[in-house]
């Protein structure tokens, strides 16, 4: 029942001594009594990943250019009727307070499971506003022209249960229990303002499985996201410079079902041709290393392009340096139903300063022709405005709601 520090501290030291014991090669039998040894030694215990934090405060929200942690849950909420600008301000103040504390490894106010809050594990909580949120907050004039559903694409088979939404909450951390607790907390505090429209959970490689910065692989086995924006382009192509969104950005989220059973029928050469990259390391078919520039002019002995006309990277490539986006994707893998043995895909996310200028032209080319479309189907689609970050006394959305 007690929650005082005198209760917490021994637990912390037990955790540390186990880590310390393991690092020193002390066996399980010898671990009894290590407590006393550890207390008397001055050598610090190795730091835990779970203690690492990502700063919540700043010009920009965390969770955009932050290195993607292993686990993420995306929540799409619908505002209840009658929730007006004043209520939205209260909502965002509460959610900001929750996020501020949880990302710092502290329990939220009125957190009924405060012990679950003590492992931040690089937790970030990022908020995005859909068209209706912005209009209720500040009228139609405040809505950027790109903040609307994407134009309909021929390949789309969109389902309402995965699409749109008034409020996005992206919760991401290296630890799935941390994510689950933060999700529970923000949803409890949203309940009187909004209902859950969808929840999408995704994963990447576990922390420490690969070198940090390794491009992720999707469930087709492909290296996915090689041609991503460089940090020096963020100010120009990710962050919005003016208005209430200055310091913010936009987020396009597409749920893309991947037909693994059909993909299984394709041989390795066909798989590489469809994308234009090698499966082994993601190198373009005209190169040897992942980050080699693709040579779209190169032809084979028959005179055909090495990187085929229908390949994904050729169709996604633009000569216009503004038609670039910051990709941040997660895999999903749900329980199969019926005869299926997989219900898998990609939670594709992209950040860009202007959806219409940067994202739509690329998607239009992929819609017209991309061999990968044979195995991938967009089933969900949403667009959100990501407001700027805030300081220790502010709240997310204050530039819109004040």
């Amino acid at each position, binding site marked *: 029942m007690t929650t*005082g*520090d005198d209760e917490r501290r021994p637990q912390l030291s037990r955790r540390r001594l186990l880590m310390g014991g393991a690092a020193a090669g002390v066996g399980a039998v010898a671990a009894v009594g290590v407590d006393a040894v550890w207390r008397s030694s001055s050598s610090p215990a190795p730091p835990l990943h779970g203690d690492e934090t990502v700063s919540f405060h700043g010009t920009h929200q965390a969770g955009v250019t932050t290195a993607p942690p292993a686990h993420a849950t995306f929540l799409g909420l619908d505002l209840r009727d009658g929730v007006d600008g004043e209520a939205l301000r209260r909502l965002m103040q509460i959610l900001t*307070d929750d996020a501020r504390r949880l990302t710092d490894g502290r329990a939220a106010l009125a957190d009924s499971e405060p012990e679950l809050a003590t492992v931040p594990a690089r937790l970030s909580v990022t908020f995005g506003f859909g068209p209706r949120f912005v209009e209720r907050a500040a009228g139609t004039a405040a809505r950027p022209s790109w903040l609307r559903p994407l134009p309909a694409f021929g390949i789309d088979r969109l389902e309402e249960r995965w699409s749109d939404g008034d409020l996005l909450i992206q919760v991401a951390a290296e630890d799935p229990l941390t994510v689950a607790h933060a999700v529970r907390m923000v949803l409890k*505090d949203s309940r009187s303002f909004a209902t859950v429209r969808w929840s999408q959970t995704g994963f990447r490689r576990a922390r420490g499985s690969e070198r940090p910065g390794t491009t992720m692989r999707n469930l087709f086995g492909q290296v996915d996201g090689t041609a991503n924006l460089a940090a020096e382009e963020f100010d120009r192509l990710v962050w919005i410079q003016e208005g209430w969104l200055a310091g913010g950005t936009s987020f396009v989220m597409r749920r893309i079902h991947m037909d693994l059973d059909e993909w299984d029928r394709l041989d390795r050469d066909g798989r590489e041709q469809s994308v234009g990259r090698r499966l082994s390391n993601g190198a373009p078919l005209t190169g040897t290393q992942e980050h080699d520039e693709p040579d779209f002019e190169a032809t084979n002995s028959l005179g055909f392009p090495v990187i085929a006309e229908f390949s994904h990277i050729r169709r996604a490539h633009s000569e216009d340096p503004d038609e670039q986006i910051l990709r941040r994707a997660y895999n999903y893998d749900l329980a199969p139903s019926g005869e299926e043995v997989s219900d898998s895909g990609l939670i594709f996310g992209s950040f860009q300063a202007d959806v219409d200028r940067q994202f739509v032209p690329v998607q239009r080319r992929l819609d017209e022709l991309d061999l990968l479309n044979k195995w991938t189907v967009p089933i969900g689609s949403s667009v959100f405005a990501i407001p700027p970050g805030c300081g220790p006394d502010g709240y997310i959305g204050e530039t819109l709601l004040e």
Partner: protein
Amino acid sequence: MRTTTTIAAIAAATTLLLAGCGGEEAADSEASSSLSMSDPWVKSADDGMTAAFGELANDGDDDVTVVAVTSPASPMIELHETVDDGSGEMTMREIEGGFVIPAGESMTLEPGGNHIMLMDLTGPIAAGDEVTFTLELSDGSTLDVEAPAKDYAGANENYEEGETDHDMGDMS
């Protein structure tokens, strides 16, 4: 009474309230100068009763007693403790003599424990509202606290006086 060490209180306290924790600040002898309340919050409710919580810390050299709390949100406010009624059932009742926070210690007001009970709301308290409380101390000094309201499903303790459950807050 639940008390924790000063270190625990400081760890939980907001930076604003840490300013005077050097210990030897005898210049101001009012009890309110050594008392702080961190992480205050109040359970949202449409009408009737609800409760407020937080961490009271006394960094002074003398005990501090909170004898009463007032707020525009409720004309009648009581200081409650939750005790074993003898049968193993936890019930809440008005505490005699107020909340006593010994010198250098702190007291947690939390669901299931000591709390500030708003007996008759003047209007709804919605999630995200800020409610002002004035804590009156035994020497006549006061401490003002701003507490945000949060939806909370718990804090539904029994009342010693009555047989029925009194929901501390009416969740809708």
